[in-house]
């Protein structure tokens, strides 16, 4: 039913021309996508960052639950995350004693401004070692409770030549089912696999959600979301530079639970006197292997100890007493057996210094935590020699 009677030779010429253009474009698109998939330039692209040049480097790894208010966002590219961090912009000098902190949201500084985190308070102390090196701490915490995630970040961080690694941990990061469940690990299957192969780590679970790296995913079209994330991260650099905000802190929040449920179970643990194998304690050894010659201070991080209802059977929202007591015992014995530097600071911070969870601290609580670490930092740092 198309009326083509009035189409002239000019139109036909036009159609041929545009059909030709369309075909060439299509071929070019396919070739570019295949080339992109074959060369996988994603990680290299992710290392190109406006941070540390146009904008100051971030004081902690990018993470944002509400990007519009946080001026920050979560993404899966570790290369981009590190490229936006201040650690990428500061070549290590001989006068610097470089300390990196890995760990969960309490180390990243949930509900804390970037200048009031554990790393920031360590820096505020302006510790200078007897050999003249100044201690500088870098916040490489990330708000996910998983030791596998800590290992993934530690593995990347080793490229930045740390002199000391501080690794605060808590029991909630140990259950096997928590290790690979976060998108950061799900979307970095190659890195997780490489880590597992290189350091003979058994992550204990075969995750069905693990993203398969199909050829399609590596093409430009398949990578469009991660490419858009890269661009958005750079744009948020403007707001980071303009405001110094990377985390919107609400004026009020629901405080950590004081009255606790009468529940004494903890994940899939069988009950009191559980074995080391029931949790991912082996990942601590893997962390030590990744660190190699660099000393590690393992810290059982401070937590809120409830005095409310059912506090006789639970310490807090996260932990039944039996589970946490067993965990501490295992940590202590493992550290002794392996000669690890271990600090048990589980009760080092006053109860009223916890905010919305049993591990998130106020600035004052974080400062208390920092100052209880500094002595050990100095002690271990003094025993190391400059490169």
């Amino acid at each position: 039913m198309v009326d083509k009677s009035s189409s002239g030779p000019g139109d036909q010429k036009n159609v041929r021309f545009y059909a030709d253009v369309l075909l060439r474009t299509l071929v070019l698109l396919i070739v570019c996508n295949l080339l992109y998939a074959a060369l996988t330039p994603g990680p290299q692209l992710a290392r190109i960052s406006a941070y540390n040049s146009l904008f100051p480097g971030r004081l902690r790894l990018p993470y944002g639950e509400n990007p519009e208010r946080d001026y920050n966002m979560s993404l899966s590219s570790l290369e981009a995350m590190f490229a936006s961090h201040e650690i990428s912009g500061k070549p290590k000098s001989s006068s610097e004693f470089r300390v990196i902190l890995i760990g969960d949201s309490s180390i990243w500084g949930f509900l804390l401004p970037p200048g009031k985190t554990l790393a920031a308070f360590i820096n505020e102390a302006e510790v200078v070692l007897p050999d003249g090196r100044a201690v500088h701490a870098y916040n490489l915490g990330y708000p996910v409770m998983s030791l596998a995630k800590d290992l993934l970040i530690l593995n990347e961080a080793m490229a930045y030549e740390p002199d000391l690694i501080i690794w605060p941990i808590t029991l909630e990061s140990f259950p096997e089912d928590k290790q690979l469940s976060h998108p950061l690990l799900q979307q970095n299957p190659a890195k997780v696999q490489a880590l597992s192969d290189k350091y003979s780590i058994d992550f204990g679970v075969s995750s069905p959600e693990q993203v398969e790296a199909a050829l399609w995913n590596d093409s430009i079209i398949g990578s469009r979301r991660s490419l858009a994330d890269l661009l958005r991260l750079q744009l948020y650099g403007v707001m980071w530079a303009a405001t110094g905000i990377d985390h919107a802190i609400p004026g009020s929040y629901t405080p950590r639970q004081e009255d606790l449920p009468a529940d004494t179970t903890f994940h899939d643990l069988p009950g009191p006197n559980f074995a080391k194998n029931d949790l991912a304690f082996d990942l601590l050894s893997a962390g030590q292997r990744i660190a190699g010659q660099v000393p590690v201070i393992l810290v059982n991080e401070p937590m809120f100890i409830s005095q409310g209802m059912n506090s006789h059977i639970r310490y807090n929202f996260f932990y039944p007493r039996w589970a946490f007591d067993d965990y501490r015992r295992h940590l202590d014995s493992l550290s002794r057996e392996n000669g690890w530097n271990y600090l048990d600071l589980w009760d080092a911070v006053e109860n009223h210094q916890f905010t919305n969870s049993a591990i998130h601290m106020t600035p004052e609580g974080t400062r208390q935590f920092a100052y209880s670490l500094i002595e050990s930092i100095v002690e271990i740092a003094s025993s190391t020699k400059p490169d």
Partner: protein
Amino acid sequence: MTLVHILVFIVFTLLVRWLWPPHRRGWFILVGSLLAVFWLQPSTPIRNLDFWLPAASIALTVLTWAIVRPAQTSSRVPWVTGMILIVGSFLAVGLLRYIPGLCCLTPSRPPQLIQVLPAAVLTLVVFALLYRYSPGKNWVPGGAIALLITLFVILKSPALASLASSGVRDLQGQSTELATFTDLPWLGFSYLAFRLIHALRDFQSNKLPPASAEEFSVYALFYPAVTAGPIDRLQRFLPDLRRAGQSEAVEDTIQGGKRIFYGIIKKFVLADSLALISINSQNAFQANSTAWMWVMLYAYAFRLFFDFSGYTDIAIGLGRLAGIRLPENFDQPYLKPNLTAFWNSWHMTLAQWFRAYFFNPLTRSLRSRYRAFPAWSIILIGQLSTMILIGLWHGITWSFFAWGAWHGSGLFIHNRWVEWRRSRAPAVVDSPSGSKISGFMGGLVTFHFVLLGWVWFAMPDPEIALDVFSKLFGR
């Protein structure tokens, strides 16, 4: 409009253009437009309102046609058309409620048939009354304009919109305490109202071309332009709709496709990216330096431009695919050497509408009634009131009032400046080098005047805007 909406519209338009015979194309565009009004309607917390608001858009369109219809219309055809438009669209969308696989075109389930039918019948009765009795009665189009303006004022005024929301909530048996002015997001009402007022005003002055009910409805509810314009004129739209031959289909498809592509890049890449760093009432006071405040303000200015001109490109591109050349809305506004030129190139169809239906009649009337008034005072009143009205068109708040007054004053100052220069230094203005320098300087000043004007536009109230000005100038 989301990318999915745009993709569906592209496919639909191409099918209509290439597969349907030209003489039936108008009907398909009409059906597409009627359905799109429901489909594009945003959700609202008030029950069934996402059905009633688009239904009201259709009803207002058909009722307006009953007022402005050509005198020689035969009595049978419009009835059939009216029935199809009103009952057909209401029922077609309403009945989807009962078809699980297809439900729903609206964001929530449409109301029950028992509610839809009386509404359709009531609209038909009003249609019949207007059709039968409105000819020759001058107060009817005037009343219709007043009704549209009243609706407009209610929707655009936060206090009245809250009150209206409270009333509608009460009718629906919902809590009135939760009523807010954002409860009534009537898709494209501002633009629809302007098209209908244009038709009514031109009808009053015998300038409206005769259009059938379906032609008029396509004009008022044309799906590419229903959300945010451009505001076309019936005189310009009709020939395209009637022509829409096959001879230019290839060229239209290519040019339309290009335009849509540019629009998507502008809106979804550039504007959405700039939105992340644009100034707003939250970040304006978090900025730690004046320089960053300016960066965020520049980002806001370009975000607005790319967002709106990108949307316009998409609308114009979709129109072109259908064979209808919608009017341009932007012509490099930020490169203009003066504010008058800026307003001739920024949201052009809105400015032209106000010029035709407010500024020109007002200044004509002032000149004829108050001959003793100096020319400059008439220009001042005309420009200030026109720009304030354009400001209030965005929302009846003090911020938009201030934005309008800012531009009205700017236009008046520019007008006086031009007069003054013409009398003082005609040689400088006429020489090519003088013209280049003044053009560049004028462009710079104009852009920054517009840029600072966006502060009024972006901030929720003038007090905050004043604080932002203080910060911008380092205080």
